[in-house]
Every structure is written in structure tokens, then in C-alpha cells.
């Protein structure tokens, strides 16, 4: 059998699921040109394509906002649920409990997660639902035209000049505090960092939370904003250089043990964290929290893997849930027999 060069070239673009990158795209984005959210969408597509995830096994979730629209723009072969403002975590918790084989991806905004949905976000950290949770953080409500959100920094100015003097909510600090086992922060413009973080998140057993600074070019990209492209570029301090090696990779990857830490993930994949200027230990909860607090005080934006703990039980594990997805259980599994009803009736006689 002979293969034509054209067919070969196409084949070279297929991932281990036999799909090309186009299979991971969604419908055309309707966001403003240059919006950070679109860049994140592309990084999500890259991560899923490169990992060779079966799109049909993914379930996408979101709340309401420009950011929450984006699940329509990636993985069109996956089912998705665009829910109500702030409540994505609840919907995702229900769906992923009902079918524990789904790969859950939630996309939310800073308004969606840190304002109206703050409670739900905090609770999903506590419950440790197995999913990837992304906050596309632009410091404002994009969809309602630029009001401050609860992640806006003190001293940050709105486009019209209004000053924010309320303390910001640091969603990553909350995540670490409340028991989330995979916490990262990144920047929509830094695919080199974000893509490995996304891949690592998909190998994590539990909730993986990534706060991605994602500038709103229309309402929060001016001088005086702390979520603008320029501000982020000036203040971004990468904690380490990230690499991801998937479990199915046969060739072992060379790294310098003196400067690089290997972080093993439950499915056999691992992250490599190459030291940059600073020393940072993502396994130490207290130092992670104090480093984050210090960075806020000094106006630094620390990005990278902030915290990792693979030993926390997930919600499914805590509930001692059967291995089979609940949705596959049939009447025979679920409806107790006649004798059981009779026995129960007897207790009421």
C-alpha cells in the first residue's frame, strides 16, 4: 500500500485520538477582537488537542459573562451547559456527580466567580469536585460594560477614571485556603505557561483551579488598570518555567535535576518546574499563602503553579460513590424489590 505525501502530511497532524486540531475548535467567537478570553480559548484548544482527549468525553460548564460564553468557542464535539450567573460550580457538581467519567471543564469570569458566585466557588473548593475550573479574570464585568468586579485591585482606575478602593478578592489564595489541591495563576498571553498548566490540571485528581489574567480590551486595558496587557507584562513574575510530560509519552524528557523539580501527577503524567529567579515551593500551603499576600502588597503578579496537593479526597471518594456512572444505573439497580417495600411498610405498622 502506498500513501500519498498529502495524506501523510495530514496524518502527521492527527493526535492520539486520531483527530486534527480543527476537531477541538468551536463556533466562531463573538467577543471583541483582542479580548484575552479568545486567547485562552485557543490555549484550551491546544491543550486538549495535544493531549488527544476524546472531545465527546468532555463536559463544558459556564456561568454568564463574556468569559462564560467561551465554551461555545472550543470543543464543539463536547456537550456544554451555559448556566446562570455565578452558579456554574453547582451545575458542574451535579453533572460530574451523575457521571463520574466525564471530564469537566468550567469557564467563569471574575464577576461570575468572585462576586455573584463567590459562595459557590468557595464551596466547590471545599468539595473538591474533579474538574478543571478556569476564571478568566479581567477585573471588570465585561458583558455589562466595564463595572469593577471583586478582583479589581485597590488603586485601579476604571476607563472613565473612577477609582477602586475596595480590597480585591484573591481567588487563588481562597482556593488554597479552602482545600483546593491544584491552584495556578497565569496570563492569557502566556501560552507557554498556560498550556502545560491546563494539561497538568487535566491529570489532577480533584478540582484544578486556574486564575488567568485576561485583559478586557474594551473596558479595562487603559493606563491605570492593573489588568491591562501592559500592566501584566510589566508586573508578571513567573515562578518557574513549566513543562508537561504526558503519561503516554514514551521518550523520557531530559531535565536538569539541580534546577528542575519533577511533579508527578496521579495518571502518570508529570510537570517540570524549572527554577527561574526565585525559589518557590508549591507544596507548602503556608508559604504559598504568605508569598501571595506579600506579592499583593508589592504589586507583583506571581504566575505559575502556586499550590499542589494530590492527597485530598475528591467528592466522589468522600461519598464512596460506585465506580459506574450513576447515569448508567438501571431500574434493576435502583428500584428495590417488593420484599424491601414490604419490609419498610412493616416498620410503619
Amino acid at each position, binding site marked *: 500500500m502506498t500513501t500519498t505525501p498529502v495524506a501523510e502530511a495530514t496524518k502527521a497532524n492527527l493526535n492520539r485520538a486520531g483527530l486534527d486540531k480543527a476537531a477541538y475548535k468551536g*463556533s466562531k467567537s463573538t467577543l471583541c477582537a483582542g479580548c484575552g478570553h479568545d486567547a485562552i480559548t485557543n490555549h484550551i484548544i491546544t491543550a486538549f488537542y495535544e493531549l488527544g482527549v*476524546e*472531545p*465527546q*468525553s468532555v*463536559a*463544558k*460548564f459556564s456561568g*454568564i459573562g463574556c468569559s462564560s460564553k467561551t*465554551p*461555545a468557542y472550543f470543543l*464543539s*464535539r*463536547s*456537550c*456544554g*451547559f*451555559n*448556566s*446562570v450567573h455565578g*452558579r456554574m*460550580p*453547582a*451545575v458542574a*457538581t*451535579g*453533572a*460530574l*456527580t*451523575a*457521571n463520574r*467519567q*466525564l471530564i469537566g471543564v468550567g469557564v467563569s469570569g471574575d464577576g461570575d466567580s468572585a462576586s455573584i458566585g463567590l*459562595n*459557590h466557588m468557595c*464551596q466547590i473548593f471545599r*468539595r473538591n469536585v474533579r474538574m478543571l475550573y478556569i476564571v478568566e479574570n479581567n477585573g471588570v464585568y465585561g458583558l455589562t460594560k466595564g463595572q469593577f468586579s471583586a478582583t479589581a485591585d485597590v488603586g485601579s482606575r476604571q476607563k472613565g477614571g473612577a477609582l477602586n478602593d475596595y480590597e480585591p478578592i484573591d481567588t487563588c489564595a481562597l482556593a488554597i485556603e479552602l482545600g483546593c489541591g491544584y491552584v495556578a495563576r497565569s496570563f492569557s498571553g502566556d501560552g507557554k505557561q498556560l498550556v502545560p498548566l491546563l494539561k497538568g490540571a487535566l491529570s489532577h485528581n480533584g478540582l484544578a483551579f486556574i486564575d488567568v489574567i485576561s485583559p478586557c480590551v474594551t473596558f479595562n486595558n487603559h493606563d491605570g488598570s492593573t489588568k491591562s496587557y501592559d500592566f501584566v507584562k510589566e508586573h508578571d513574575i513567573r515562578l518557574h518555567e513549566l513543562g508537561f510530560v504526558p503519561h503516554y509519552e514514551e521518550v523520557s524528557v531530559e531535565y536538569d535535576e539541580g534546577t528542575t523539580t519533577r511533579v508527578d501527577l496521579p495518571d502518570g503524567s508529570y510537570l517540570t518546574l524549572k527554577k527561574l529567579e526565585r525559589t518557590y515551593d508549591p507544596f507548602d500551603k503556608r508559604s504559598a499563602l504568605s508569598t501571595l499576600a506579600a506579592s499583593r502588597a508589592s504589586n507583583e503578579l506571581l504566575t505559575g503553579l502556586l499550590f499542589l496537593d494530590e492527597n485530598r479526597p475528591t*467528592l466522589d471518594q468522600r*461519598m*464512596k*460513590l*460506585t*465506580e*459506574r*456512572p*450513576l*447515569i448508567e*444505573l438501571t*431500574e434493576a*439497580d*435502583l*428500584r*428495590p424489590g*417488593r420484599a424491601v*417495600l*414490604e419490609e*419498610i*411498610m412493616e416498620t*410503619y*405498622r
Partner: protein
Amino acid sequence: MDTTLNNFTIQVATVNGSGSQSANLVLLRSIFNMGIPCNGKNLFPSNIAGLPTWFTIRVDERGYACRRKDVDICVAMNENTIDADVNELAPGSVLIYNEALSYRPRREDLVVYPCPFTALAGKVTTEPKLKKLLTNMVYVGLLQELLGLDPVAVEQAVQKQFARKAKAVSLNLGALKEGVAFAREKLTKRDAFKVERRDLTAGKILIEGNAASALGALFGGCTVCAWYPITPSSSLPEAFIDLAGKHRHDKDGKATYAVIQAEDEIASLGMVLGAGWAGARAMTSTSGPGISLMTEFAGLAYFTETPGVVFDVQRAGPSTGLPTRTAQGDILKVACLSHGDTQHIVLMPASVEECFTFGMEAFDLADRFQTPVFVLTDLDLGMNVWMSDPFRYPEKPFDRGKVLSASDLERIGKFERYRDVDGDGIPYRTLPGNPHPLASWFARGSGHNEAAQYTEKPAEYKRKLERLARKFETAKSRVPAPIVKNGGDGEVGLLAYGTSHWAVLESCDQLAALGVKADYARLRALPLPDAVEQFLASHRRVYVVEQNQSGQMMALLRMHFPAHAGKLRSILHYDGMPLDAATVTEQIAACEKESAN
């Protein structure tokens, strides 16, 4: 002295948290064990301990089960309420009171039996806490003697109540004996109330509505329960947790159900919808304030066509209202819960048996119609003890509705989530995780076309709303139909739903005795089936009996059947207490008198 046999009410007035509930249940079950129909209602405060609480038992061998307002036998154990409790008694009633209270009898027209309950309990134990609890069993002993309760029936009830825990059983039997002995030695029976063994409760059960609803959820195949505690709903999910814990395990002992105590009712419904979208049978349970919080999600469920079951055990509102008192005040809100043109399937059980059957049916309807289904009960049904025939094992298999598998898709070759293929308004759905390339779709609360794509096009949006309306048209013939009891001549009709049923049943007989002959239709579900219109059409005057102030069901009837609006009249009851027959009869009789003039 005449005897009043197997037909009286007992009211025990105690202090919340004093442990009287066990004694009251023993008393109730003793009568039940003697084959005499009875039920018990707990009128309790919103308080953990210290405030007054009343337990009422209605014994009635004719089987009437609603509350009777008048008290025949009052057991007064509460210092703080005894004056008011006594004042409310009609002449000839029996007053049994605890001599340890400072109360001294002032009424001559009552049959009064003072009893040193506390001192008698002291003969059984000196431990103060235990003594307080056992004091309650002493009045059961006293009543055993006075009413002529069969000692065997009482002992069986004690055994059952204390789950055969030997020490508790023997202490309680001891206290009981003290009551019996005191009555025998120190009291002379001067009242008319007596019980006599019958054979009317054989095989029957005594159960609370919330436990029955939870059984419905268990046998209905519920796998995900998300809830947030609230009176009077909490005992429903708690019963489900208990039942599922016993009866839902795989061969490795792992749970084939999930219960999540959510952070609020918003999240509860969100979790239910996530689970329903994924293909599970999911439920939540709440009361009025929780329903208010669920509003936005209810609309999302309606519009995205996502199944889920919501039990609403109604209490008296608005706001916190009377959290431990009953009402039917949520029907109007639930009927169209959310903003925009929303409507819901609502089931309205009247009995514990219907809590069970509708509890199951709700999951079938939610799956069939891909929409949230609300099961509206109330505190009276949910938290009180009702006598019932035992629940029959369901013969109907689960109806999982129109779900397409990968092989279905392969065969059909195309899929559009919101296309009305069958003309019944119900589209087909796929579940996330379905491996077929055609399976995926995106659920969204924003406008969408048949292919589930975003749209703002006027015609597409309108088409969606109209198809949803068609779906509810189909639902009319699938929800439980009204049950009509004929007794009239086409002049007067009564309409009621839920727990009002029991008062209306008795009221029908009372009215007939007054010469008012009426047919009675009990509504059991929304959307209102066509039979409701036929009932309205075939009567000159229709009284709508309900437990709220504004005539909510009547408003719905007027909205749906404007041609008959003029013949509807509201019979209302809204003081937080369970509805009694006299309240219904008096109002209707007065209206009928007016119509006659």
C-alpha cells in the same frame, strides 16, 4: 351517662423539647393497634426548646382525617399555656392537668382530673432528665385507664416506639403503670369518651408525608439528592439519606446514590439540573424561602428543557412567616416560577400514599417532559402522622423519556436537540459523554433554535416558546387527572387540592346534611387537565377551597378558564393551622344561603 365511642379528639399541651413526642406517638399507635382509625398532628413552635407545643389526636372510626378544632380531652402539661388551653374548651370537655403546675381549676363545666404526673414519674426514676421524659408516659397510662385502651395494644406501641431497647421499654412501661394505677385508685370516670376494639386498621400504616415522599424518590430511582435544610422539608431528604443508606449499594458496598448538602437552595437546584442534564434522576426538597431562591434556575430548567424534581413542603409565609405552620401559599409562585413565560408541571398529593406514588411519578414526568417537576406538599402532610393503606409496589417501569443513544444516532443519522420530531412538543435529547459525533449540543439559557444554536431571530425565539407551550399541552393528558366525587345535581361544585382534601371530604357530608348537595373534584396536578374545564362547565357555582389568603388556585383557574371565572368563589383558610371541615362547611353554607336569597 352517654358514651362517645371511638370518636373524639385529644390535645396534649406540652413544652417544646420536653420529650412528649414519644409518649404522644405511643398513645396514637395504641389506638391504631386497637383497629380504630386515627391520626396525629403536631402543632409546634419555631424553637428548639422551651416554647409551647400541642399534639392533637383525632380518633374517628368513620375515618375522617382532617383536624377537628374542638378539643374533647385536654392534657395540660404546660404552665404557660394552661389558662388559654382551658379557656378554649367547650363545656363538658375533659381536662387532665399536671398537679405540679400552679394552676387550680376554675371552671365548673368541665370534667377535671388532676394528676401528680411529676411525682408519679419520680417513683420510676430519680434522675431529673429521665423523670421529665417519663412524666409524659404517665399521662398515657392515665388515658389508658380512662379511655379503656387495651393494655396489650399499649405495650406493643411502647415496644415499637422504643425499638425494643430493653431499658427504655421497661422504664416507660413503669411510668405507664403508675398512670394506670393512679387512675384506677384515685379517679372516678365521669366523662363519656371510650374506645372499643374495631377491625379498621388491619394492615394499615402510620406514616409522615415526608417519609412517604422519600420512599417515592427511592423507588422512583433518584440517584442525586442536593438539598439545604429548612423546616418543614428537612425530614424528607433526611429520610432519603436513611433509606438510600440502607437500600442503595453496589456489590462492593459502594453507594449507588449521591447526597450533597448544598450551600443554599440556588446551588441545590443547580446541582439537580447538572445531574438531570447529565442523565441522572435528581431531586431537591425545600420550602417557600428556598423556592424563592430557586427562581432563576427554574426558568433555566424550563428553557433548556432539563429534568429535575423539586419537593416543596409548604409552610406559612411570606418571608420566614410561620415556619412551623402549614399553608398552601406557594402554588401561584411555583406554577410559573421564574421570569418570562415559564410554566411548570406541579403535582399536588393529598395523602401520604400519593406522596409515595407522585414521588415516583415526578421522576417519570421530569424525564418524559424534560422539565422540572414540582411536588407540592405542606407541613400538615409532610410532618404529621397519617393512617394509610400500605403502599403498593409500583408496576409501571421507569419512563426515561426521549434519550438517544449512540446507536440510535447511528441509525437515524441526524440529531437536532430542540426539533419537535413527533409533533408532541417534546424533542429528543442526548446525554453528555455520548461518544457519537452527532451527539453534542450546547445547553444555554439564551435564545436558541432547533439545532440548539444561539439565536436572537424573532421567528426562531417565538417558535421555541410555542413549542414549549405545545409540550405543556401534551402534559395535560399525562399528569394525574382530577378525581371527581359525585354527590350533587350540577348546581354546586367544590374544588380543592392537597391536604384541603380531608376537610372537604368531611365537609361534603356536613353540607349534604344541611341540604347542600355538591360534587367535588380534587385537583392533582398542573397543567390543569381538560377535565377541570368540564367540571367548571357542568356546575353553576364552584367553590375553590384552599389554604392561602389570596385564592391562588382560583386565580389560576380564572386565568386558564376565563369563561367560567364568574362562577368561582374562594373558600379560604390561612391561620397556619391545618384546615378543618367546619371552616369549609360554614363558609359554603353561608354563601349558599346568600345564593338562595
